[in-house]
């Protein structure tokens, strides 16, 4: 049986494609009609084609397990997720505003700390932040920008509005999958691109290159840009290689780089040593330089911090940028936007309870079964409690965790995350919850991807979208419904 949209019901959640059974939203209309025109055999053919394409393109990610690392095929759902261009333009403006404010905030923290002196942010929050790096105080990176690449997670609540869930300012990943998802869809559903005005996304590598090139300490025509990867065993290695290739940059490991006594960075090449200007580093702060941080790190480069502080090499993102990637700081972002930009925030935050405040903590401890509790400094969906899906035992464990370290926990209401039709067993369409991670770049200019990476919780009713925890993904279409 082919797809019958009248049979599809999102069960009261806001659905990205369908407004009510049988009725597609404007940007999804052509897509829905087209899918309904495919018979079951054809649909199955396309699904298999997508699977084969992923294997041929070698799109994979690594999962760490007790039996070792497994290189898994990228989980992809054939049905794209659509957003109207009009709504996207508004969202993109909000994302740019947010990153500009966050960068001003980080720069302030490592210099005069006006934001603390003016009483906007409590001093102890910064002093107790595991991501504040005293080593960075007084450093001014090019353009005063610390977080050059940001992945911000957006969700839609029952009211259809986008809310910011978190800002990832350390080493956000996923952009290569956004690009590959589009490449797969073009191969598997080529007909749709003829009739629909789907905005292209493939300028990202060029924009990333421009952003990085603008950071070069040497004013040369072709600065030497490298992508620093922890190596093949990292879960995002595919992405590191992909971005290096797309930008025409070298993909290097720590052992390929060397810092000399003049604090200049070089890479080892077949011609000898070659000067490096910009490093897009995909390893965490603490592994960057064994002279300064983790002494046992073999992933980093001894002397890298010396070279960076001397202004001889640019690091993107700058060390210490993660101080703003803290779920407690997140709660203050709307105030930071007003403080630094004197503007009203264009994007909303999710209501957040800070467990370090007595009143908030009391509320959280009483409502653990309804809230989502997150540690302030984890990523990848680890260490979370999803109240409504948790046991009494889980809740008791989190109550203890919160009481012993309140600074490290926040809680948010469980959102009625939006859904989109997703192909499940037997080629049936069922609603699955999803989020959206756009990527924002800031160097000399600010840029936002057209859409982003849509991540889907493949398990029925689940709200966990992380690929490390069984999440899938969809191509994301920004559709210009007003274009002729």
């Amino acid at each position, binding site marked *: 049986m082919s797809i019958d949209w009248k049979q599809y019901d999102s069960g009261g959640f806001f659905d990205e494609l369908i407004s009510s059974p049988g009725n597609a939203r404007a940007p999804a209309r052509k897509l829905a009609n087209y899918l309904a025109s495919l018979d079951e055999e054809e649909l199955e053919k396309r699904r298999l084609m997508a699977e084969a394409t992923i*294997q*041929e*393109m*070698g799109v994979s990610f690594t999962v760490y397990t007790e039996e070792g690392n497994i290189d898994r095929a990228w989980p992809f759902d054939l049905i794209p997720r659509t957003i109207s261009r009009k709504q996207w333009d508004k969202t993109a403006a909000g994302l740019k505003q947010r990153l500009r404010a966050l960068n001003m905030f980080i720069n302030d923290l490592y210099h005069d700390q006006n934001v603390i002196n003016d009483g906007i942010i409590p001093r102890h929050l910064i002093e107790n932040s595991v991501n504040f790096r005293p080593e960075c105080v007084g450093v001014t990176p090019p353009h005063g920008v610390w977080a050059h690449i940001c992945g911000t997670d957006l969700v839609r609540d029952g009211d259809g509005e986008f809310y910011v869930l978190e800002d990832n300012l350390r080493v956000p990943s996923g952009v290569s999958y956004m690009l590959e998802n589009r490449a797969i869809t073009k191969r598997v559903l080529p007909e749709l691109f003829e009739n629909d005005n789907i905005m292209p996304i493939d300028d990202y590598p060029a924009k990333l290159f421009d952003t990085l090139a603008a950071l070069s300490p040497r004013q040369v025509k072709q600065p*030497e840009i490298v992508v620093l990867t922890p190596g*093949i065993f990292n879960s995002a290695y595919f992405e590191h*290689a*992909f971005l*290096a*290739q797309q930008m025409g*940059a*070298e*993909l*290097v*490991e720590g*052992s*390929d780089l060397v810092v000399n006594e003049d604090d200049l960075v070089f*890479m*080892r*090449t*077949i*011609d*000898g040593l*070659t000067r490096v200007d910009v490093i897009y580093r995909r390893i965490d702060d603490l592994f960057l330089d064994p002279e300064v941080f983790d002494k046992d790190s073999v992933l980093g480069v001894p002397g890298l911090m010396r070279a960076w502080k001397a202004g001889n090499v640019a690091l993107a993102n700058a060390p210490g940028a993660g101080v703003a990637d803290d779920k407690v700081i997140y709660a203050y972002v709307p105030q930071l936007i007003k403080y630094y930009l004197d503007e009203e925030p264009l994007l909303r935050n999710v209501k957040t309870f800070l467990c370090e405040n007595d009143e908030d903590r009391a509320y959280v401890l009483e409502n653990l079964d309804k809230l989502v509790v997150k540690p302030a400094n984890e990523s990848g969906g680890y260490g979370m409690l999803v109240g409504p899906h948790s046991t009494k035992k889980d809740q008791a464990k989190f109550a203890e965790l919160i009481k012993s370290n309140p600074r490290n926990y926040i809680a948010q209401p469980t959102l009625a995350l939006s859904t989109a039709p997703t192909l499940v067993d037997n080629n049936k369409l069922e609603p699955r919850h999803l989020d959206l991670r756009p990527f924002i770049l800031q160097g000399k200019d600010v840029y936002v991807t057209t859409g982003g990476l849509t991540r889907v919780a493949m398990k029925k009713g689940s709200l966990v979208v992380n690929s490390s925890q069984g999440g899938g993904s969809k191509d994301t279409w920004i559709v210009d419904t007003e274009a002729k």
Partner: protein
Amino acid sequence: MMLSRVAERIYWAARYLERVENTARLVSVYDNLLFDLPRSVNIGWFNLVIINSGTELFFERYKVQDERNVVKFTLADDTNPSSMLSSLTMLRENIRTARDVLPAEAWELVNELLLFARNDIQQGINRNGRHAFLNGIIEGCQGINGLLLGTMSRDAAWHFMRLGCNLERADMTTRLLDAGAAVLQLSEDNDTTNLPQIVWGNVLRSGSAYMAYRRTMRTAVNGTDVAHFLLGDEHFPRSVSFCLDQISSATARLPSAGKRYSSIKPQLPKHDIRDGYCMSPDFRDYLNDQQLVLAEAHNNIASNWFAHD
């Protein structure tokens, strides 16, 4: 500009690509012989293991030296680092870590080839599907080589590819000759008068050299001329001396400033191949000497461009 580490991975990717194709070719020499030889001739499948220097490992895994075990060991065995499937996996790993300097399609083709090999490996082990399977592998390798030939800039990456490819190819040509010599040495057959012709004909075919040989040598297939052709022909791309020339010319185009070996020009050891020589143990020793020349060339290349000091 190229990282030393990347140069090394490209070089090995090219070697493994060539090794995959040549392992398939080597098995097909034996496979083809089966069609042509009388049952009385023992063609000694186990020679495949000896030629690839795998005797010790083989006996850790198998007791019986029969066709099935030898073919399984040579094509499919994960525990044999020089099995075709192991080489293909290593090819993929090296390309995966050097993807940023290779055409994107190379990565896709390698993935396709590995999928095909893994899915159809049983066809290669069973005698009835073997020919088609080996052909599929050889065609897959040639597809990748064709893509690289048609799309890669002739920069350092290309020259490292050429180095890896030609070193491995020269190595395998000597092994193919050795395979032929070994069959004749061990056959103990004096009835089949045209046995040498059948064996050397298959050695040529497995190197895709049959037509080129006929056109160049203009003579019937015989051991002496086949050896001369596969070792010394100036124009045939799989002959050892052609490969050595390619190695010399590729190394001459790589940066040499401050390098330990300012010129790398491997030469064929002097040889004197006369009638009947190709079936003698001396010939097999001579082929072994050539492998030493190739090993030295590899060491010089590694110390010039891959050293991680």
